[in-house]
Every structure is written in structure tokens, then in C-alpha cells.
């Protein structure tokens, strides 16, 4: 625990340094901010049951926010990816998850309101298996699980603030967890709910110039 706080401090101070340095060059902002929507990103879709629990093949889907593209899993031990998805678990490229200078935290507020990353923000790093920068579990990070209807819903007003492997900033809003960006009706069969889940729809903005601004 103390270690991670220490890491966070180191991380934060380095961020501040980076942020200050880049702010000297504010004109580049407009051209370096990219906004994208990613649809139906497969995140280890369910292939069967094990001990009554649905399981996939257990592989993460790695994604580069810098390049807006999926990264082959053979490159998982590199700085080529920034964020990875497997079921409801999300990794960032740092700590126990990868060699990058990444990190993340969950911001409460709307996506549009988040115009700049506050300098006192604490970026966490993944520390498997006990703690992740984006906490997994219902109502802990980005989603709630409804055990009655067996549905996963992204919590509105949660934005994932990501530091990419290279140390740039991005903000990610997860919009839906089901195929086609549509959550099945609560009355839909379990089969439909299981077969259509683990398809992410999310939007993100990525600031390539190293500043903390999303404007």
C-alpha cells in the first residue's frame, strides 16, 4: 500500500514536470487532440462454462489510444498499447501490467466537463492481483452489475483518465458493454445476455502533446 502511494507520488511529480514543460508550447494543443469512438471492441467473449461460471479464453484485447488501433497480444510486453480489456477488467500499461509509463484513475463528472487533468490528480498503477488502477468489481470502478437481471451497465458520470504507455493523457468514457452498443432487455434470455456481452463501445480523447488539456 505504502509502496503504491510512493509510486503515485513519484508519478505525480513527474507528471507535473511533464505538464509544466509542455505548457510552454500551448499552440500545438488543437492539432494534437484526437477524439474517437470505438465500437464493439471484443474483450474476451464468452466461450463456455467452467464450474457454472461463464468464461472466455482468458486473453486481454490490447488497444493503443495513441494510434487508435488494436495491438496484437504478442506486443503485450511493450509500450505499443495503452489500455487492455478482458471481460469487465481493464488494464493500463504500467506496474504489473506492462513496461509503460501509464496509469489511470476514475474521474467523477461528465466527459465534456473534463477539460484538463487536475495537477493534483493521483494516477494509480496496476498491482496484480489485489489492486488495479481501474478497480474491477461492481460499483467500484466503471460499471455496476445487476445480479437480478444479470446485466453490466457503465456508471454514468465516470470517466477513465488514462496515462498512455508513453506518458500522454487520454480520457475514456465507456458507453456500453454489449454488442452493437445496446444492452439486452432485462427480460432477455441469459443466453443472449452472455453471448452479446464483452463488446466494448467507448469514446476517448487523446492529447498527443503531453499536456494535461483536452481542449
Amino acid at each position, binding site marked *: 500500500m505504502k509502496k503504491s502511494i510512493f509510486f503515485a507520488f513519484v508519478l505525480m511529480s513527474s507528471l507535473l514536470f511533464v505538464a509544466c514543460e509542455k505548457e510552454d508550447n500551448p499552440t500545438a494543443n488543437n492539432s494534437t487532440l484526437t477524439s474517437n469512438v470505438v465500437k464493439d471492441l471484443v474483450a474476451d467473449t464468452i466461450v463456455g462454462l467452467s464450474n457454472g*461460471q461463464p468464461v472466455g479464453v482468458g486473453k486481454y484485447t490490447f488497444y493503443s489510444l495513441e494510434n487508435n488501433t488494436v495491438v496484437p497480444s504478442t506486443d503485450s510486453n511493450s509500450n505499443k498499447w495503452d489500455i487492455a480489456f478482458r471481460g469487465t477488467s481493464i488494464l493500463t500499461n504500467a506496474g504489473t501490467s506492462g513496461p509503460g509509463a501509464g496509469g489511470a484513475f476514475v474521474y467523477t463528472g461528465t466527459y465534456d466537463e473534463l477539460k484538463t487533468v487536475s495537477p493534483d490528480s493521483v494516477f494509480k498503477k496496476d498491482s496484480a492481483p489485489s489492486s488495479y488502477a481501474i478497480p474491477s468489481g461492481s*460499483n467500484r470502478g466503471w460499471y455496476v452489475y445487476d445480479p437480478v437481471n444479470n446485466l453490466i451497465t*457503465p456508471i*454514468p458520470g465516470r470517466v477513465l483518465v488514462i496515462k498512455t504507455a508513453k506518458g500522454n493523457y487520454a480520457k475514456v468514457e465507456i458507453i456500453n458493454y454489449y454488442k452493437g452498443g445496446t444492452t439486452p432487455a432485462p427480460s432477455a434470455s441469459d443466453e443472449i445476455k452472455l453471448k452479446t456481452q464483452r463488446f466494448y463501445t467507448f469514446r476517448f480523447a487523446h492529447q498527443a502533446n503531453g499536456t494535461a488539456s483536452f481542449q
Partner: protein
Amino acid sequence: MICDISMMMVNVDRSNIAPDFSCMWRFLLSISFFPLAGFSQTNTDSIFNASLNEVVVTATRTPRIMGNLAIPVSLIVNKTMYQSGSLRLNDILAEQTGLVITDNFGRGIQMQGLSSEYTLVLLDGEPLIGRTGGVLDLSRITIRNIRKIEIIKGPSSSLYGSEAMGGVINIVTDRAGQHKTDASIRYGRFGSIDGAINVSRRFKNTDIQIASNYNRSEGYSLKPFAIQKTVEPFWKSAHQLNLHNRISDRWKAGTGMRFNTSHIDNSIAVHNLGNTIVSKGFEKNQEYNFTPYLQYQVDKKIKSVLRGYITGFDAMQQLDVKDAYGSYNDKFNQLFARLEQQTDFHPTQHSTLTLGAGIIKEQVSSNRYDSLSTTRQNQIIYSFVQHEHAISERFTIIGGARFDANKAYASVLSPKLSFQFKLNQRLNFNASYGRGFKAPDFRQLYLNFTNLAAGAYAVFGTEVAATEIKRMSDAQLLEQTTDMFSNLSILKPETSGGLNFGIKYVHPNNLHVNLNIFRNDLSNMIVTDVIAFKKNRGQIYSYFNLKRALTQGAEINVSQQISNTLNIQAGYQYLFTADKDVTVAIKRGQVFQRSASNNLVSRMGLNDYGGLPFRSKHSGNLKLFYENPKGFFATSRIIYRGRWGTMDMDGNGLINRNDEFARGYVKLNVSAGIQIRQRIKLMAGVDNVFNYKDIIHLPGNPGRVGYLDLQFNF
């Protein structure tokens, strides 16, 4: 002798004398401080207006005339229940203003926006037990042998102890000693059969009443071709015996005995990734009540009653799972015993003092908690006092308090205060404030439940949570505990403060208008929260006194006797509910919602908040009762329930979007009947004429149901 006041002073529920109207009349005058002339135009026998001259006992624990009560109370008489074609308690309550029947864990009642667990249901003054998920299933109770139902709303009846927060419903069974025998049989859709026999006799000093009821149905399926029926085939039986003995002019003793059984077939289909696992079995609930009492009339001013009560509720479910999972057995046995002494003093004719004390022993054993061999017990000692005083002919005040002390959770004091002011014979104002409570139940204290199917979550009661977490932690099963784990503490009772303000208006032209404005502030409400995460990410919950809520609204009832044969009644309730902490968070701008059309997230405003789930902002009814002197009657009852929030869809845990509401509905129920030669009553009816269905939100509503009913008086 017949009109000895001592005879009338008995708890009217169990009065063992035949109703003698002249005697009743003098009795009423003796305890009422106001001229009744203004009300005397109301026909006491009328089914239409639960007449203001009726004697009710539930409001103050002593017999009182309804028109003189400083507490909102309503009454449903047997004739209304019969003509409305009601068989079970939920049938008739569903047609009353401000009462909503819920459809989770059986038929529960919602009153003033408070759910079933906050409403006390009494049978002849004694509380019924056997709740599932806090809900007392009202369909357990036949009303074939019920004389009247008294309903007190709000916690002004806090003298009844735990659960009397939203209100109290007292079901009063038929009088003994009436020399009558009747039998009835009903056939309805879905192979529904209901048969009942009631016998009432008097032998010298002993009065007896016997009632038996059998009810069955083949159930129904709202989804065609489903393996599992929406309502599975069931049968229910109820047997009751009441005995009263006048030992002397002053002493009276008696007992009531009741035995209830219900049996429900189970055929449960679980779909898992295309595999369908079918389990077959049954559910069986047995309930028994034993209510001996001894009453002593010291003199005209003092009466004392010693009441005993033993009741048990045994539930079991047995399923044979057609797979490798083996069989499933669930057992729940609850026992409740109470001894209570109540003394009523009438120091002057303007005041009544009621003193009482009692002891309750409760025990539960269930394999939901531990093993069946471990019995959880609690003992409660309580006392109460109430003083009613008529300060002037126009102004009456009632004050009272109850104190409950026990071992398992914190003690609680429940005070109440009511006023009534009669401006004139037409207009009458009342105001009351009361505090009620609900004790933490055994589930919240001792539950030890792990669901392997749905997300592998677990729920532990507060008394067992710490031990279980330690055991799991030692076995390396936990990922981590949460901050809430360190907040685990002894549960406090849930409490509410209720304020009621009522206006009653009676026009000589047989128009009655009743307006009641209410507000209930609930605190220390018990909710679940996550205390730990398992390694497989399953969540572990326990219970906390966290939530504060508010329900407020207004209820209006109007009835008009249009002619000797026709009566029209209309009722409406406006209800506003809120979780107070949600309201605070919304005001602080910490709550968000996602649009259903464009997925955009915005801050929620107070106007977007739909309040507590399952509450309808608007509900009402319109009823017509026709009855001619030849014994023919016809009724038409329209019941309206406005939309209500059901589930969160956008992940904020709140009711805010339109797709999070169930559609409102209108139900029309009709019935007609005729009496042939004083002995035979024939009735036919159709419930839900418009055939309204909502498979998802109203599984207990099968659509249109017709029935035929034959009653024979011997």
C-alpha cells in the same frame, strides 16, 4: 344484565354476546362525549360508508367509535368484501385508496409509500409472522370468515410495537355465538376452487365459532410454452376455532386456534448458456396460532385482560435438481410467543387510561442462517401507556408511548400524540404525530447465504459477518475487505416519525369527504452494502443502518349515497417519495444519468429523480355499489395505479429514465349477485375486465378472471 356495560367493554373483536343494537347504542353513548345526532343519518348497516358509528379497536387498543377518533382509520365490512368477490386479503386491500399490493415474495402491502415490512398485520389483534424478504404474503389469509378489516395509516398506532410504521391492518374474524351456519363454494378460471364452511353457535355460557377454508388453483403461464409457470399450481387450507366462555359477570375467558397450510408445486427452469436445468419440487408453509385470554371486569371503571399468544411459521422448499447439482432443501422455522397484560381505566367519563406490559420470545432456526439445529432467539420486554382525554365537547387529545427493550439490538421508545377538533357536526379536524420502529429481523442479524449461480455473491447478517469474514480470510478466499467492513456494528431498529393531518366533512345529504395529508420520515433504514470481495470477484454484503427516506402525500376519499340503492365512492392518493441521501447528492451535483436516446451523460436534477422504486405517484379508484331491497346487488370497481419505478437501466442505481418505469394501468372489476329465499346467495363476477397484463412487472396478475360463487345459509 344484557346491557351491563361490562359486557360491552370487552375487546369487541372477541365480544361473545350477540349484537344487540339498543344495547350497543347506549354503550356508544356512554363512551362518547359528543352528540351523535349529526351522524345518525348514516345507516349503520350500510356497506357503503364504513359508517362513522362503527366501533373500531385497532386505533387506540380500546373500542372506539370511528367518528370520534383522532387517528385516521378506515374500515372494510364483510358485506363489501363479499360483494366485491374478494377471497384473499390482498383482493380487497387492492381496491382501497392509498393501498398498493406488491408482487415480490408473495402479495405484500404498500401503505403511505412504506413497503410491506413496515406494516403490521394483526389477526384479531395478534401479529402474524412468517415474512419472506420482509413481505408478509397477504394471499395466505382467507377472508371468508372475516367480519371486518380495520386499517390505521401512519405510525400513530405505535402502541403495537415493531413494524407499526406504515400502519396497522387488523383482521377481525366472525363473531362466535350467532347460531348460524353457512357454506360457500366458488369456481373460477385456472381451475380455481374455493370452499368454505362457517359455523357459529352458543351453548349456555359458551360461544363457539368454527371456520374452514380450502383454496386451490392450477396456476397459469403468462409466457406461452414456458417450462416454468408464472404461478405454479397450489392449494391452501385454513381452519379456525374460536371459543369464549362467560365464567361470571366479571370473568371471561376464551381462546382462538388457527391452522393454515399452503402447498405450491415448483418446477424451476434455469437457463445457463443454452443449457436448461429443470428442478422439480414443492414449497410448503404451515402456520399456527393459539390465542388464549382471560378478562376481568373489576368494576364499571376498570377492565383488565391477560392475553397469551403463540404462533409458529414453518416454511420448507424441496427441489430435486435434474443435473449434477443434487437436491436443494430450504427450511425456515419461526416461533413467536407473547404474554401481555392490558388494563383500561375510565377515571371519569371524559378520559380513558390504558396501561399495558408484555414479554415476547422469538426464535428462528433455518438452514439459511446456519444449520437447523442452531436456534436464534430474542426476547423483548415492553410496556405502554395511553391517555385519552376530552378537554371539551369539541376537543380531544390522546397521548401515549411504548418502550421496547431487548437483547439483540438497541432499545426503542415510541411516543405518539393525537388531537381531534370538532368545529361542528359537519366538519372535524384531526392531527397526529407518532414514532414507530421496526426491529432488525433475523435475516439481517444472522443470514449466512452464498449464491453460487448469480455472480457468486454472499450475504452475512451483522451478528455473523465478522466471524465469516475471518474464516474466509484464513482460508485465503478473500481479495480484500472494504471500508464498510470496519463500520460493521450492532444494528439499530429502523425508525420513522409520522405526521398526519386530516379533515372529515359530512354533509347531511349523505356526502362524506375525507382528506388526509401525511408525511413519514424514516431513518436508520437497513440496507446492504459490500463489506468484502472474494478472489473470484464475488461480493460479500452485510447490513447497515444507512438510509434515510421520506414519503409524503395526500389521500382523499369521497362517497355519496345517491339513492337508497346506489352508492358511489372515489378515492385518490398523491405520493412523493425520496431517498434523502440521494436528494442531497443530486443537490450537490454528484449524480449523473445517461440518455436512452443518445447515450450522453448529464448531471441529474431533482426533477429527474423518480423517488423510491415501486411507488406510484398517482393512484385511485372509482366504485359503484348498487343494491335493491329484493336482494339483488351489482358492483363496478375501477382501480387505477399510475406508473411506478421498477429498475435502474442507466447504471446510477436510481429511478430517473422513462424506460425505468412500469406502465400504469386501469383495472375494472365487476360483480353481481342475488339472494334467493334468504338461504341461497348466488354471485358471478369478472375481475380485470379489460384483460390488462404486464408479464414483467405484474406476474401475479393473470389477466381477465371470471368466477361463480354459491353460498348457502343453513
